[in-house]
């Protein structure tokens, strides 16, 4: 439903604003996950954020029934995709949340370039996959 999509988008935007307000941090999920794993000593709140990130969808599932994503792929294809996402987002200093949501909103030229790059690459990838599969 389009209304639920908009509501979900509002929640993401609100969460990003709250993180900036209370933590003074950009809601870049890939960077927060990186900090939660590798910089736990200095950025201990990052792990708490990641736990919340898992608890939120579980709460929605408890209220609204499970909505697990459907991966019509072999486990190694999902793992390869995850590896590429992790590698690319570290290389590009962020993912869709940090660059696409927060970066562009704050007028960061680097984020505009990053977002355009991964959107165009995504469109090309989906196009090629559609021809191959």
């Amino acid at each position: 439903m389009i209304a639920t999509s908009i509501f979900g988008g509002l929640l993401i935007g609100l969460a990003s604003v709250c993180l900036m307000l209370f933590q003074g941090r950009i809601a870049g999920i890939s960077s927060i996950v990186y900090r939660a794993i590798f910089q736990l000593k200095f950025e201990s709140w990052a792990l708490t954020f990641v736990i919340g990130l898992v608890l939120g969808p579980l709460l929605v599932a408890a209220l609204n029934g499970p909505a697990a994503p459907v991966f019509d792929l072999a486990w190694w294809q999902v793992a390869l995709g995850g590896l590429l996402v992790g590698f690319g987002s570290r290389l590009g200093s962020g993912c869709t949340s940090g660059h696409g949501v927060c970066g562009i909103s704050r007028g960061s030229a680097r984020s505009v370039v990053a977002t355009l790059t991964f959107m165009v690459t995504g469109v090309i990838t989906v196009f090629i996959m559609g021809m191959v599969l």
Partner: protein
Amino acid sequence: MMIYLTALATGAMFGAGLVVSGMTDPANIQGFLDLATAFGPSDDGRHCGCAAVFPVGAAAVE
């Protein structure tokens, strides 16, 4: 202590937003990026598009 509470709450809010907007479903993301069917009857792309536009507006408020 406060910093952990807000981190937990914002994390939960962000995660819930992703699920509610359908962005955890790979089919929605592929539909959004699929220009070949973007002008067809598929609603997935538009839904995802709306969800992508609103965070920008909300974050701009800060």
